[in-house]
């Protein structure tokens, strides 16, 4: 490959990525612009709240339950190397609420919700339902994107909060059944070492991740290509982009919240 060919091979995808980031940013700005301006669609918002929040609860709950249990085992096993087994409750709690609850909750919601939104809106696009909305004097951004983005931004922090509690419970269950912890002591250690901002930062992360998930689902769905292949590609792109952006946003938010 010639030097100019190599440069082109690197440059073209880089430019395409930058262009896509620009389009997604404009899309997100447009959604935010529509949130405060009428008309509002409360029915669609509550339907999405149910779809995104309530129906994601089993997935998020099971994920955090098993993660909390595994985390307790890992910390106990690692802590035993320097006689620090007693830190299990506090580390499980801090690890869950600051990091694992929001990140794993966000990723599970990305897998479940971003794919579902992208597939639904992509299908609506290829079957001209989005055009039909426009001809019926209904702005698709307001009717389709705003309720989903708003619902995800509000529902995911609640899911993270519930997931945190379930994850800590997973650690507690393993602690008292497998690691010989006293139940009351475990719970006291959990509460004593946990600060309000540990929980608050996780909830803020949850809101950011919910926003990312819905924006990615809506953007990729509403810009889906033609046919089954186009919808399939949109769905895949939505999940991949949402997952990567959640991990990147998590790093940035952790820097902002805990390193100053």
């Amino acid at each position, binding site marked *: 490959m010639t030097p100019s060919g190599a440069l082109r091979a690197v440059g073209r995808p880089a430019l395409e990525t930058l262009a896509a980031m620009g389009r997604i940013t404009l899309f997100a700005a447009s959604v935010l612009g529509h949130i405060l301006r009428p008309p509002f669609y409360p029915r669609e918002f509550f339907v999405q709240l149910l779809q995104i929040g309530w129906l994601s609860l089993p997935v998020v709950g099971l994920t955090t339950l098993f993660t909390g249990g595994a985390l307790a085992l890992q910390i106990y096993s690692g802590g035993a190397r320097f006689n620090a087994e007693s830190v299990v409750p506090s580390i499980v709690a801090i690890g869950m609420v600051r990091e694992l609850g929001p990140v794993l909750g966000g990723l599970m919601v990305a897998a479940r919700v971003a794919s579902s939104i992208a597939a639904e809106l992509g299908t609506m696009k290829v079957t*001209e*339902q989005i*055009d*039909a909305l*426009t*001809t*019926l*004097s*209904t702005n698709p951004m307001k009717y389709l994107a705003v309720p989903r983005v708003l619902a995800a931004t509000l529902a995911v922090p609640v899911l993270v909060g519930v997931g945190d509690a379930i994850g800590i419970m997973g650690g507690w269950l393993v602690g008292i059944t497998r690691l010989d912890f006293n139940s009351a002591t475990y719970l006291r250690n959990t509460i004593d070492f946990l600060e309000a901002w540990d929980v608050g930062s996780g909830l803020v992360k949850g809101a950011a991740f919910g926003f990312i998930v819905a924006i990615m689902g809506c953007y990729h769905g509403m810009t889906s290509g033609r046919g089954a292949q186009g919808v399939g590609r949109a769905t895949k792109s939505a999940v991949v982009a949402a997952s990567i952006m959640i991990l990147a946003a998590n790093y940035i938010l952790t820097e902002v919240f805990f390193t100053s």
Partner: protein
Amino acid sequence: MIELLGVTKTFGSNRVLRGVDLTIPKGSSMVIIGGSGTGKSVLLKSILGLVVHDAGLISLDGEDVRKAERDAFLARFGMLFQGGALFDSLRVWENVAFRLMRGPTKRPNAEAREIAIEKLRRVGLGPKVADMFPAELSGGMQKRVGLARAIAAEPEIIFFDEPTTGLDPIMAGVINELIREIVVEMGATAMTITHDMSSVRAIADQVAMLHEGTIKWSGTVAEMDATSDPYVDQFIHGRATGPINPVR
């Protein structure tokens, strides 16, 4: 009256519309014919603003459609989409009454439902259908529901995009008759795009042929049958040989 002057639209290197000039008089039924991929749907969507044309002028009653107030402009239109484009998550009556339940002319749900059932009856569907979901309906029933939705708010202008595609000849005939009856009854301006000649004969006052991005010919149905234009002649008789290359 809808007027198009020198309308062009290009997608990448594909010049779909290359200067379309067309006039659709108020209250008339214009049918645009032409092969697949000749830009008929793009033309229709350009008028509605679903596709933004590159150059030229599209006006409705003398006003440039790009400068018109969007909601007021779209409120004058009804559209039947090729595949129906019914909203899967809504019941049939909610699809039909969609416009009536939102926006400045919003009506109470009970009244909107009554109007929807009346419009469904107008297109030959019983009240039982009202509470079904679109996925439970056959293709022909979906087209009828789409038609009911297009006329629900009694628009001045109705667009029909391939209204008989995918239907058997009997159902296609039923839809053609319904379209003709409704357009006459409402006194609406209608624009239909199709390559189904039975639709053309049933629906059209005026016919225009779109080929290679321009209007190649226009006239009445009788003039269409009598014309010696080789493009029209080949198209309406479905000949494989002639000036239109069948492989595009």
